[in-house]
């Protein structure tokens, strides 16, 4: 295999397009990792069932659309509430009892993911399902040499809106103040009369709901099958960890990883790009275990 | 030459200085108390000596060697033992196992893989157990000890290290009067044989044990001298009485 076969020659316009594709990939990573960022960043819980929350979001959309005739746009908020409900229950029944054992939450949520995958497979069968999207999302945008599917533009916009919404909730509402208070010091927050348990429930449900929206979006450009979520979990975690568990950090790390992925796969192939990316991340974490962005460490 | 010398030690975060060109000397066999109100920088100083935090400036000499910038375990191996403010023992191990771990005669993992002996036959295991009075509790898991017992266990662990210098961060914190009394007995027996630096809030306890007292305030040296002098020092009284009433624990 010669070098020429392996490397695509450089040309400016497609390269710029590759950068835009990178933006689109980044938005997918971001939307996949957003819920996890909220849950991990606030509660320190490693939720291995996150991918399955995404899957549940996709299947909710499928059910709402195919059986109840919901329009696609309405499915997004609906998926949010359905999966948030799921998350709320799981937090109450399981996660709540494991806050003292963070590694065990990781394992327990892995069990949850097995149950969810198989549960969905039992109910809907293993064959792939699909979600229809409005026709205006089924074409591509063309401005000059820039090409991007409208669906991708839509995902970029939705993910941007969700980041803004989350930011607004965290930093501009009373609930947000409570969440941040609990995040920084649970005991202190409790002494101010904040019910930490309630905050955790809300946060977990919100994070799950955001994952649900991600699932609803992903159903539009790929097929739905019960273990579709397991493909997201590693990447989503890397986005979160590299971003230091912060909202803004995840935005940056998703952007960075999306662009790197796109540019790598422009020059070489996708699989190799993954390997390079993962290795770089491991090395990066070695030197900055706290991620791209982290608050000053408080020590006693 | 002192056992422990701090020369202009400084620790600063971005816009905030916790310890500012702080110097002091501890000579061999001395029991030094380090006093100061909350936020004076006492625990930070302990962290700096033991390598838990990195210095922003100055240098630390221990037993004639510059230990500035060394790693925690290297400093500990040179003979600095430390007891923490919040007692830190291995909660899932028994009291005996805690003490065995603390007996650090060999740092090499491969040597320790071949070591199956009980520390019962080690240099001063029985003595130390006797000193901290945990003989009947040797088989108990450390997580089940009372608060006072946990403090004593940690003191015992520090002693098992056979250190040249013992740093004790608030050894009586959270103890009952009875427990405090027993602790001061332990210190009485350590005094003379060991070099100790004790951080303490409890004035009566300090009065019982201290030779020389160093007072810190806002990261700086405020006063140094025998307890009697310190108690009448007007600057100390100002700082202390201002913040902590009559100087006894609240």
């Amino acid at each position, binding site marked *: 295999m010669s070098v020429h076969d392996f490397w695509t020659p450089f040309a400016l316009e497609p390269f710029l397009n590759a950068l835009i*594709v990178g933006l689109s990939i980044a938005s997918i990573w971001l939307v996949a990792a957003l819920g996890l960022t909220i849950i991990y960043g606030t509660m320190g819980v490693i939720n291995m069932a996150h991918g399955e929350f995404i899957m549940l979001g996709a299947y909710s959309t499928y059910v709402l659309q195919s059986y109840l005739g919901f329009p696609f746009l309405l499915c997004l908020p609906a998926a949010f509430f359905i999966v948030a409900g799921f998350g709320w229950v799981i937090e109450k029944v399981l996660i709540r009892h494991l806050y003292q054992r963070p590694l065990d939450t990781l394992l327990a949520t892995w069990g949850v993911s097995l149950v969810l995958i198989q549960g969905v497979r039992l109910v809907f069968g293993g064959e*792939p399902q699909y979600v229809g999207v409005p026709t205006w999302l*089924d074409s591509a945008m063309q401005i000059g040499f820039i090409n991007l599917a409208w669906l991708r533009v839509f995902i970029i916009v939705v993910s941007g809106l969700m980041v803004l919404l989350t930011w607004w909730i965290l930093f501009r509402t009373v609930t947000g103040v409570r969440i941040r208070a609990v995040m920084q010091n649970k005991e202190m927050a409790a002494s101010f009369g904040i019910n930490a348990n309630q905050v955790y429930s809300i946060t977990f449900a919100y994070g799950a709901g955001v994952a649900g929206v991600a699932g609803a979006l992903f159903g539009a450009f790929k097929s739905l*099958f019960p273990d579709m979520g397991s493909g997201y979990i590693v990447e989503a975690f890397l986005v979160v960890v590299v971003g230091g568990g912060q909202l803004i950090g995840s935005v940056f790390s998703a952007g960075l990883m999306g662009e790197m992925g*796109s540019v790598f796969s422009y020059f070489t192939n*996708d699989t190799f790009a993954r390997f390079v990316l993962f290795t770089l991340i491991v090395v990066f974490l070695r030197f900055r275990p706290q991620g791209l962005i982290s608050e000053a460490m408080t020590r006693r | 030459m002192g056992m422990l010398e701090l020369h202009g030690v400084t620790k600063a975060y971005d816009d905030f200085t916790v310890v500012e060109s702080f110097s002091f000397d501890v000579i061999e066999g001395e029991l030094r108390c380090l006093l100061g109100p909350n936020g004076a920088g006492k625990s930070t100083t302990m962290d700096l000596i033991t390598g838990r935090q990195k210095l922003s400036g100055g240098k630390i000499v221990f037993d004639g060697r510059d230990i500035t910038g060394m790693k925690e375990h290297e400093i500990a191996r040179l003979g600095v033992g430390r007891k923490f403010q919040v007692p830190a023992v291995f909660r899932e191990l028994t009291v005996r196992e805690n003490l065995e771990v603390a007996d650090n005669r060999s740092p090499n993992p491969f040597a320790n893989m071949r070591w199956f002996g009980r520390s019962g036959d080690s240099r001063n295991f029985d003595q130390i157990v006797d000193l901290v009075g945990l003989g009947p509790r040797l088989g108990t898991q450390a997580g089940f000890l009372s608060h006072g017992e946990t403090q004593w266990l940690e003191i015992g662990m520090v002693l098992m290290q056979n250190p040249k210098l013992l740093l004790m961060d608030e050894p009586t914190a959270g103890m009952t009067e009875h427990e405090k009394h027993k602790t001061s007995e332990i210190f009485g027996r350590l005094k003379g044989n060991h070099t100790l630096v004790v951080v303490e809030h409890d004035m009566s306890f300090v009065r019982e044990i201290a030779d020389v007292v160093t007072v810190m305030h806002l990261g700086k040296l405020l006063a140094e001298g025998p307890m009697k002098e310190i108690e009448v020092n007007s600057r100390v009284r100002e700082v202390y009485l201002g913040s902590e009433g009559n100087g006894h624990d609240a």
Partner: protein
Amino acid sequence: MSITRRSVLKGGAAVTATAAAGFPHIFVKNLNQAWGAPAWVKEGEPIKVGVLFSQTGNLAVVENDSTNVVLYAIEEINKNGGVMGTPIEPVVVDAKSDIKVYSEKISELILRDRVVSVFGGYTSASRRAVMPIVFARDHLFYYPTCYEGRECMQNVICTGPLANQHSYDLIPFMVENFGPKVYLIGSNYIWPKESNKNAKVWLERVGGEVVGEDYVPLGGSEFTPIFNKVRQQEPDFIFSTVVGDSDIALHKQFKQEGFNVDTMPIAALTTGEIEIRAMGAEFGAGHFLSAPYFQTLDNPTNQKFVENYLGSKYGTGGVTHYNMEETYLSVYAWKYGLEKAIEQAGWDGVTPRLIRDVSGGIRIEDDISPEGLIWIDPDNFNAWLKPKIGQCQSDGQFKIVKAADEHVAPDPFSIYPERGVCKADGLHTEDGKVLKNVL
């Protein structure tokens, strides 16, 4: 060697009871029998065959149909008198879509259940995982779907197309109708690469040109970077060997990226009825597929097959497709082989290997075979068949636009002639050696 024998001895749970049954024969065909193992088949006693597909997990989507169609074929044969009056008994196991389980289950079938042959597998990975025990016990495995070839095994019979048969007509047809420039997109593993190499051979003959070649990870669903390059290269058509979920994502994103199916269609080797159903017909319409079988094939045998199969309890999937039909044929190939072996050596003399050895040249006529006559190559034991080209219509079914004029020979080493020639007894290399079980 002595170890092997001992374990075999112990293996027959009923060694002492049945030793006598196998021993009296003078013409011992097989070591196992020499050592007193029971006969593989007995007249009047149900003949056990193994059915090794995934019924659970992600491969089940395709392999459930495989299990079903094998059971359907066995039921059909049994209804018509079985094998020379003796019924067939399928032993069905679930490989759980886990390669590790395939290898565990095949030994269960061979050693414990003592089936005479096994039908199984849909992926090359599962085929390779089960091979060692099949070789070691000189057993017989029917691999009923397409694969890359380039292997020469003495214990396998395959009824699907090899890489050299698959694009035989497709590439010339596409170049002729759409233009010479092609972009190759495949899943990142051996079969797509081998298929692309074969496609390039055909391209060279008809004056085509490869303008790009890309592979996505199995299960990958992100095609925008590749479509970005496609847009840059402006090919006349895309040749796709993308499989499974990725295939669905490919077709969906093709449309969403705004490409026109009329001027740059996808010519695929795998996008059949089942995949179209999973993506929605509007994403598949207009694209091309090369396969030996389509549900819409217009002949009485196929009409009967579709009608009967979909009407039976096995036909819950609602469609028939090429993989399913190839699996169906493998059961008949086995039946004919077994009958021939019994004629040759008697019931007691039948061994799995004997069935394989006599299967060369077996024909499945068009009164049985929905795709029309096929026969098993006597050298490499793959199938001679006629690939066909279908274009997907808006209802999700294919319109046959071209069928091969004559049968295409399977040739596993077509592009590696220097490696040797695959014959019944092994790969004959240039220096005159015969290598067994090359994979």
